[in-house]
């Protein structure tokens, strides 16, 4: 082993080229076993795939095959190859003054041909600059102007309220304590229009002064989009009359107009004014009066 590893011209007993293992034959045997195991596992992997595949078996056999190869090669490198220690000088990474001066000379020689035509150079910069500016514009194609979309949802005056299967919601549909996810008719699944219909009490509830008639028969409707980071506010704790957002645990107090009572949310869930039509179906009186969902810099500037 040591003989064949040694480059020509070195002393035959230089211990730097000796294998690191005290018993190279033993290491050699271990490596051989590892490679045999890897071969067997590799063949078994092919057979497993051929027979239809099985995830756990594939992972385990691949582990054994790659692991056997990795173990064998590493042991070979560590135990049977020259470990030295060897030493090598580092070259100086700081350029010498002569080299710097020579570089400067070469560079200035080329630079002069630009310097002599300063006017052309300025025109060139102008052209490249104009191209650069022009190339920024296509970014605009990536998406529509945010415009008023963030201030509006699909709820309109008189829109009927439907479940996620499209069926309309009646005044008799919820027991006291019930909760239901509803959408404007024709926009089932709409992300920004998703609304929670809750019935915390059998009689009208005033969540804020001026909203005395917003809750027929104790039904309240709030935007389901969290005002913190936009997750659906999916958990209703009936005994505490609280809505909880499972993403970041913002808590909203239903009887207080869904004012945030804990967590990172800073604003209440907007309330949707609802009414009951002559057939007993719920309808929106209008769109939300406040923008729904998470905040943005000019949220307060343009009312919906």
């Amino acid at each position, binding site marked *: 082993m040591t003989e064949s590893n040694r480059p020509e011209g070195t002393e035959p007993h230089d211990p730097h080229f000796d294998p690191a293992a005290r018993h190279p034959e033993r290491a050699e045997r271990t490596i051989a076993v590892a490679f045999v195991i890897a071969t067997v596992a590799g063949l078994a992997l092919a057979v497993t795939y051929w027979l239809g595949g099985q995830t756990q078996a594939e992972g385990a056999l691949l582990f054994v095959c*790659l692991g056997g190869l990795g*173990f064998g090669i590493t042991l070979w*490198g560590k135990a049977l190859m020259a470990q030295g220690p060897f030493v090598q000088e580092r070259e100086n990474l700081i350029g010498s003054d002569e080299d710097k001066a020579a570089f400067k000379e070469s560079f200035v020689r080329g630079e002069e041909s630009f310097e002599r035509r300063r006017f052309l150079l300025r025109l060139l910069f102008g052209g490249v600059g104009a191209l650069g500016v022009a190339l920024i514009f296509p970014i605009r194609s990536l998406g529509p102007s945010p415009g008023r979309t963030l201030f509006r949802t699909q709820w309109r005056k008189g829109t009927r309220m439907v479940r996620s299967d499209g069926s309309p919601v009646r005044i008799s549909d919820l027991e006291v304590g019930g909760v239901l996810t509803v959408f404007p008719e024709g926009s089932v699944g709409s992300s920004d229009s998703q609304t929670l219909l809750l019935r915390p009490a059998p009689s009208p509830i005033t969540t804020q002064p001026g909203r005395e008639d917003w809750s027929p028969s104790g039904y309240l409707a709030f935007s389901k989009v969290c005002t913190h980071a936009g997750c659906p506010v999916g958990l209703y704790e009936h005994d505490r009359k609280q809505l909880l957002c499972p993403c970041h645990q913002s808590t909203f107090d239903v009887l207080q107009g869904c004012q945030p009572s804990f967590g990172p949310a*800073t604003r209440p869930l907007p309330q949707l004014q609802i009414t009951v039509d002559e057939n007993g179906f719920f309808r929106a009186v209008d769109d939300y009066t406040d923008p729904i969902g998470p905040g943005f810099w000019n949220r307060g500037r343009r009312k919906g």
Partner: protein
Amino acid sequence: MKSPTAAVSRWVDDRFAASRWVRTALNKIFPDHWSFMLGEIALYAFVVLVLTGIYLTFFFDPSLNKVIYKGSYAPLQGVEMSAAYRSTLDISFDVRAGLVMRQMHHWAAIIFIGAIVVHLARVFFTGAFRRPRELNWIVGVTLFILAFVNGFAGYSLPDDQLSGTGLRIAYSIILAIPLIGTWAASLVFGGEFPSEAIISRLYGIHILIVPAAIAILLVAHLGIMWHQKHTQFKIAGATENNVVGSPLWPSYAAKSVGLFFMVSAFVAGLGGLAQINPIWIYGPFVADRVSSASQPDWYMGWLEGALRIMPAWEVRAFGFEIPNPFFPGVLLPGITFGLLYAWPFLEQRFSKDRDPHNVLDRPRDRPLRTALGATALSFYFLLFLAGGTDVWAVILHASVNALVISFRVAVLALPPLVGVVTYYLCKELSGAGGGRRKPPAIVERSVDGGYEARPAPRPAGSPEPELAPEPLPETAGTTE
């Protein structure tokens, strides 16, 4: 010389005169230390990511077109879903070896970023970022950010309930940026959330743009390391002007290739035996649904925690506002990565040490740097823990609110404490000699009570005494 190797090398050499510089490369000395393998683990995890990722691209369909599932996973039969989600189900249940590849890909991503973070900590605590390696530190931090971004883009692709929730939060964070947020969110997502465009955009980013950037920067990262030569610890014979270790050919190459196979083996074992991201349990993304205990991949945990424990503050004036998620979601990562980029220069400024360094610090010998690093690590670790307040609440039978308040206090109070303790521990330890085990000695007490020590004789079969490092033997020919 009749062997095929000799024939091929002769053919190449007669066209490129390659033998000179290849020989120099083969003889290049690499210092040995287990902690120098951390970056290699990241490198090899990236190789596994590319290989498994190529396989997945043959089957994944990055489209949000609505389809009805008719595959072999019975509980979702007949359910309406996106083509992206269906193709991920098909990879998991109907493509032979698909699930093991998919899970290997995900585990490799988790190990990739984990190895990057530990490698970064090693470089930080040993001062390997000091002159002349500031530029490679910057390349490394950029690789970290790219890995982070690509991890998020990757697990957002299947369009399952969990990843859709993550995208919803990402949209809200972009929306929260002052002045440009509304436009930026619309341009990134191609409209208001949930847009039709986002999955196909993320797909291009995930499989082409970011991996290409990572590959290019990896070459730069390794090329700079190769040119500047690796740092080393202060072992016997090591100085600022040399490298002590083993040559690239064959021992270092064998150990490194062996490590590649072992990293792949580990990923394969996890991919086959440890379930990860079971999207068939989460279901397809539906905008009005969400599940509790929605946790992102581990490397997003610190941001998740920061979003959760941020108090309900925001800035409002004249109808304008800086929304709450801006602070934990934009400002915190901005400061984090900004400080990482700036660190080598900040340290140079405050320590006035602008000399080149090739010998690494022991962390204990730089108490202030080590203490600051420990402070930062404990801060991010606490944020990471805070990302699971709902899960902790279930495990500890505690209220979520109490946990959130505890984390708000802990995140501010504990890291400085960790820093102070680390500082004094380092001061205490830096006096002690370190590193290698001391040679055994025989201590004798004389009749008049004095003690005398002498080295013990080497027991039979114990390792040879350390050899002094020597240059590789010179042979004829020129070197680079």
